[in-house]
Every structure is written in C-alpha cells, then in structure tokens.
C-alpha cells in the first residue's frame, strides 16, 4: 500500500496534478475523466489518451495480453475497440470518447503487465484525435468515479 501511495505521488508530481486518495485500494487521479466502464481519459487539446483505471487493473489481475486496434480506425464513445486479457478472463475495452486512432502503445505487446504496474502512465493504451469534444461532458470526474467504484464494490 505504501509503495502505491509513493507511486501515486510520483505520478501526480510528474503530471502536475493532485491525487484524490480513496480510503482503500485504488488510485483515482484528479485531472482525468472516467467512463463507467472503468477507462480513464486525459484530454490535451483535441487529442485524448486513454487506458484502464487502477481499480480496473486491480480487479482484473495479471494482464497477459492487450488487443490493440489498427491506426486510423475510428472509435465511438461507449463502444469496444480492443480487449484486455488477464490470466483467467477477457474484457472488452470501451472507448470513452469518439475519434480516430492516431497512436497505439506498441510496448504493451511485449509488456502487457504495464497495465497493472502503471495504468495511468506507461500502461496507456491508445491516443485518438477527438471528433466531438462535447462528449467529454458525459464522462465522470475523479470524485464521481471514486464514488461510483465504492458503490459498485459495496454492492458485493
């Protein structure tokens, strides 16, 4: 746990954002946006980077394979564009926003485990050129996402 907090603070200072800590388990970064299917988005002008959240990788377990989309392919908000495989199961990754894929994290082909060890940094999955900046409004901020995760976990 201590190692995680250290990592989170390092990430936070590197990204120059503040960290919202939850009482337990996962890290939720303040300046990112979140989808209810557990993807995070970082907006930079008309470009967006996404990946899966710390909460997601924690529940998934060891990631052994990441299915990446082709460059140039279009993605739509809420629709699947790839998959993340853990030792025991496969999960679709849904696009939190619509756009065109301009970069994929090829490093994940050799080191899928980065999704676990660094979900917000080295474990980023794709970058897209936004087609509709307004869609970002539909996403959750860090507080709402933290609450969403707590409620989801509490149900079970």
């Amino acid at each position: 746990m201590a190692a995680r907090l250290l990592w989170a603070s390092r990430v936070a200072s590197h990204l120059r954002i503040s960290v919202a800590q939850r009482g337990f388990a996962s890290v939720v970064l303040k300046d990112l946006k979140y989808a209810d299917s557990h993807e995070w988005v970082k907006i930079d002008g008309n470009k967006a980077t996404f990946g899966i959240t710390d909460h997601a990788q924690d529940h998934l377990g060891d990631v052994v394979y990441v299915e990446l989309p082709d460059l140039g392919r279009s993605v739509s908000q809420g629709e699947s564009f790839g998959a993340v495989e853990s030792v025991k199961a496969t999960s679709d990754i849904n696009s939190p926003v619509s756009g065109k894929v301009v970069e994929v994290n090829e490093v994940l082909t050799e080191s899928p485990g980065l999704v676990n060890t660094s979900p917000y940094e080295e474990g980023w999955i794709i970058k897209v050129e936004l087609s509709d900046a307004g869609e970002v409004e539909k996403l959750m901020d860090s507080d709402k996402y933290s609450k969403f995760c707590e409620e989801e976990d509490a149900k079970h």
Partner: protein
Amino acid sequence: MRGGSLWQLGQSITRRLAQSDKKPLSPRRHFASGADLKKTALYDFHVAHGGKMVPFAGWSMPIQYKDSIIDSTVNCRVNGSLFDVAHMCGLSLKGKDCVPFLETLVVADVAGLAPGTGSLTVFTNEKGGAIDDSVITKVTDEHIYLVVNAGCRDKDLAHIEEHMKAFKSKGGDVSWHIHDERSLLALQGPLAAPVLQHLTKEDLSKLYFGQFQILDINGSTCFLTRTGYTGEDGFEISVPSEHAVDLAKAILEKSEGKVRLTGLGARDSLRLEAGLCLYGNDMEQHITPVEAGLTWAIGKRRRAEGGFLGADVILKQLQDGPTIRRVGFFSSGPPARSHSEVHDENGNKIGEITSGGFSPNLKKNIAMGYVKSGQHKNGTKVKILVRGKPYEGNITKMPFVATKYYKPT
C-alpha cells in the same frame, strides 16, 4: 471494460473455473448469495491471509491471495503451494465386495492395485462417457478411499448410491462413509516433502507417487496420498476438520514462508501446464476416457473383460481408435480459451479448445482441446479463432511443463 461491473468480472472468472458445476436443477449452487455458500474449515484462515473469496461449486473458495495468480503459479514450482481442497468429496467404500463393486463403475483394475496404492480413474456412464474423474486408492481389499470433484459431488454420490443399492440387493457386501468430518489439503512443489517430513515420524522417502498411508501428521491421524493436480511432487492430506487450521499453520511455518497459501486461479494454471483435464471443460458426459487420452487408466484386464458401464463403446474405440483426440496447443496472439474453434491451415474446422490460458512458467500461451483423429499429430500447424480472428498455433505434446512425480529409480 465490458459490462461496467468488475464484480461481474470476478464472477466470469469463476464461471470459467466452475464449468463442472452445470446443474440447472439446483440454482442455489450458481452464484448463490454469501449466505448460501458452504465454507471449509479454513475459510476464516483464508480471509485472514488476504484470500479473495469467490463462489465455486457451491462453496466460498479463495481464487487467489495477495500475490498475483502468475506469481503464485511460479512459486509452486520453485518452492511450494498449500491448497485448501476441502470442497472436494472424500469417501470410503468398505466391505468384502467393495472392489468388485467399484469395478462396475470405473475403468481401473482395482483388484490389481497393490494395497496402499491408488490411481486416477474415470467413472463412466452407459455410453462410455465420463461422469467424473477421481483418484481412487485401494487401502486394503476391504477398503477403498476415493476423492471426487466438488462440482460433481451430488451427481457422483447419487450414481454410486443407486448402484450400491442394486449390488447389495443381490447379496453384495459393500457400504460407504462420506468423509465430511475430514478436510482435504494439497501440498505441492519441491518443498512439499521436506516440509511435511518435519511434521511426521514416518519416512516419507518411502512413500512413492500414487501410494497411500494412514499416519500421524502434526498430532492427528491423516490419510496421506502422494499425488496432486499440479505435476509437481506433493501430497493430498485428509485431516480431521478440527485440526485443519493447525495443520495448515504448521506447514506454512515449517516452510518459513516459502510454501504459500495458493488459490484456485493458480491451481487451474498449474494443472493446465501439467496437461491434466479439468472435468467440466476437458472431460464431460459425452467424452470417453479413450478420446481424452486416458487409455492408460483403463486396466489391461478391464480392456479384455469390460464389466464397467459403457464398456462396449470404450472397447470398440480401443479397437477402432476414437474419432476425436485430446491434444495440446501452443499459439500466438491472445490466449486461446474454451470453445475457441481450431482450424487447419486451409480454414477447415478440425476441433475445439476446451481449456487455455497464459502459462506463467513457460511465459507463452498453452491450451488443450479435441481435434479429429488424423489431424492430431504433434507439430500440426493450426489456426485458432479468438474473438473471430485466426491466430497461428501448433499441436504439441503434454504435459507442457515436465512432471516431477516421485517415483522409484
């Protein structure tokens, strides 16, 4: 991430592991609420050690602990693992005729087993298909000890009971005792024997793979079998349930932390690496032991005489060869999973995957499944469809990781 509910993801994981529990008539067993699930004697012990508990075959079992499934799987082969398998069902058959009785239900040459020796066997149905696989041990000519899968407990016990009634009505002397007063633990890996030796006066170096002994371990009378489900040297220990926690603690302490509590997630990875069938995935009601590559388990005398359910079908397959065979696969891309189609290089369907995943010890994808006889040779290039896309693969022999059973030199 699909579905939005990560708890559902955890459930889908257990759904894959719980394939053997396919009983629509008892919905209570499927994803029952916490209140309905049975707990083993080690439940609190698991939780205290960080166990992530999930429903499995009607029980609340640890799928993993604080270490990842990958680390846990590797640790078993480097050091050792302690598994709680108390959800499985142990029973004893007793009486003058317990051996001929059991022979009507399984393919093993039970009469030919030396006392204190056991083997993997298959309970068959009238069509020669597998009702369950089981490790049976002939303790003496009048006592057989056997362990069956948790997910098949009700089915197996009903089957045995029905046949026992018929057998007894014809004057046969057999009775049973189901060992619900005992808990089964599995200790596997290179440290299993040295660690266990600290806890018993009996010389374990004389107990070889497949052998059984009733002895004192850590102060209680245990049934000990040198067997397991990982391919490693190790033991299955049936201990009186009131001593199960103490025994688990003692084992972990004697290993100085090198032997770790290990969950069902790693257990599945280990047995897959060892090329062992998981009933419900790689073996089912419609699959015969011959098709499953378990012809070695059909006793020589049994192949000549039959006398077990479905013998006519099985004997014919032994003569003509089966039409499908279980084989191993390596593949590129995402891990092949149960129900993935297997195609030949020209795109014709030749089979199906029944179990697959990423091998933590080999660091590559492994899988097992069935292909048409004739297409089953090692080295055969195949294409495996995962989520609609074909990926290169080839058929390979099993086990994927060499076994280390303790056998006399």
